[in-house]
């Protein structure tokens, strides 16, 4: 609902409402409402802010735990004061929090945004609609076009955010990317795994793949990864594709002309 309300065009009702909301978002920097008692306005502020704080604290339990409470509250307060949320669903506000952090990284340690993205992946998958299975016609992920589940979140992080806890805060980025995958399993629970560079490349190719069979994708990978024996990629890759299929990361396969046939 992001909508810019500009002062000269506002009705007196709109002005009254915006002034009231401003006192809730940012009590220190907003002029008080003349006919509202300070303690009642403070109550509104408390109810609204605590609702947002509780929502974010339960969506980002690790981030909340590892940050100093003061720092965490500062992030939440600034977000609440400045961000114009567009989603009607309070749970999805956490996704907008991640976007907000990305645009306001000043003074935050490098791992902070990556940890927030990783924690959001779990809730994002939980809130997501079911996958559309109507395209899937088979389970030959090698000779037909493998269909990747839309319910996966693949990240390539500089920091090992999946290991962050109170006793382990990484100080410098890792030499190699941490490719982390979260996905919705067949039983609707969420799976998490770290994948190696080849698996990560395969997943990335699957994400944009429109027309290539599993075998063709692997053949393309042999050219991109000359450091490996082609036979090793073909065999290892086909095992990975099957494992992805078993794990519900790849949902099945389709043929190229599936749409035309229908």
């Amino acid at each position, binding site marked *: 609902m992001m909508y810019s309300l500009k002062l000269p065009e506002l009705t007196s009702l709109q002005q009254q409402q*915006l002034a009231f909301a401003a006192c*809730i*978002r940012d009590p220190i920097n907003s002029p008080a409402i003349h006919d509202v008692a300070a303690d*009642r306005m403070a109550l509104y502020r408390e109810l609204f802010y605590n*609702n947002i704080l509780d*929502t974010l604290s339960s969506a980002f339990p690790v981030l909340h735990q590892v940050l100093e409470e003061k720092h965490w509250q500062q992030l939440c307060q600034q977000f609440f004061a400045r961000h*114009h949320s567009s989603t*009607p669903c*309070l749970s999805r506000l956490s996704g907008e929090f991640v976007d907000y952090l990305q645009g306001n990284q000043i003074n935050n340690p490098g791992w902070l945004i990556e940890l927030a993205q990783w924690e959001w992946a779990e809730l994002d998958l939980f809130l997501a*609609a079911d996958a559309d299975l109507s395209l899937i016609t088979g389970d030959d992920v090698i000779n037909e076009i493998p269909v990747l589940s839309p319910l996966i979140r693949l990240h390539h992080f500089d920091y090992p955010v999946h290991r962050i806890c109170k006793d382990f805060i990484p100080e410098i980025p890792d030499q190699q990317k941490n490719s982390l995958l979260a996905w919705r399993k067949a039983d609707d629970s969420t799976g998490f795994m770290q994948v190696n560079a080849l698996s990560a490349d395969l997943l990335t190719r699957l994400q944009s793949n429109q027309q290539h069979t599993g075998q063709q994708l692997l053949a393309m990978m042999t050219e991109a990864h000359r450091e490996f024996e082609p036979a090793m990629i073909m065999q290892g890759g086909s095992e990975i594709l099957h494992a992805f299929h078993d794990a519900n990361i790849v949902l099945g396969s389709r043929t190229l002309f599936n749409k035309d046939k229908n």
Partner: protein
Amino acid sequence: MTREGQHQSTFEQDINMNLSALQGAGLGLRRSLLDEIETLAEGELDFLEVTPENWIGIGGQYGRQLRRLAERYPLVCHGLSLSVGGPAPLDLKFIRDLKTFLDELNVVCFSEHLSYCSDHGHLYDLMPIPFTEQAVDHVAQRIMQVQDILQRRIAIENVSYYAAPSQQLSEIDFINAVLEKADCDLLLDVNNVYVNSINHHYDAYQFIDALPAARIAYMHVAGHYQESESLIVDTHGAEVVDSVWQLLDFTCQRVGSKPALLERDFNLPPMNELLKEVNLIRHYQTQQRADDVQLKIA
């Protein structure tokens, strides 16, 4: 007949058809209650109330559980983010998504708060609309717009409020003016009447008496938190207090046995405790019916 008039008569047919499916005592559905509600015997609950914002677009296990419950129970939907009194234009895409959701789950009644919850963005809680003539026009026009898109009459809930900025009208006059002007139904929150009567020093019983009984689609009861002698906070986090039960009793006597449900959002007790309160709702509803029968016999 105006175009709006035609729509309104259609809505009336819809609501009468739909609301007949709604009776007895229900419970507000929370995600953490899903498993327990699924195992309840038939008849423990007469209907469920769902917050659509929390369920629209949700798949997986929860999505399936909701669809199974929709097969077993009549559903009412109680919106949270429409911001029907808000300063920015209505979110039309959201209202269309809402319509799809209501239609898919065969929802018998949709309600929202007589409030606003956004400025330039969502704030996810209820702010007090200034009780002014200007606000009556603004809200009523928007309720009609929502009814037009949803193709159904909606119910508007009296909210608890802790301040009345820019007030020109009394709360009761404001509510009645909106109901009249928008020609919509009322979701009567009995707890909110009680909470507001303490916080704003008025007589809760007179307030109930001044409401248009025929517009009441269904009712809420809930627990609250007494912060001080003169301030109650509407938390939905405790059991319903005696004063609210008494007010429900009075309301059932005055307006007849309307469908009613228990709202509980925080500090959730075991299911059997919630069911005791649901049964207490039934007690007051049926007590009223028993009184009716006695009156007729006499």
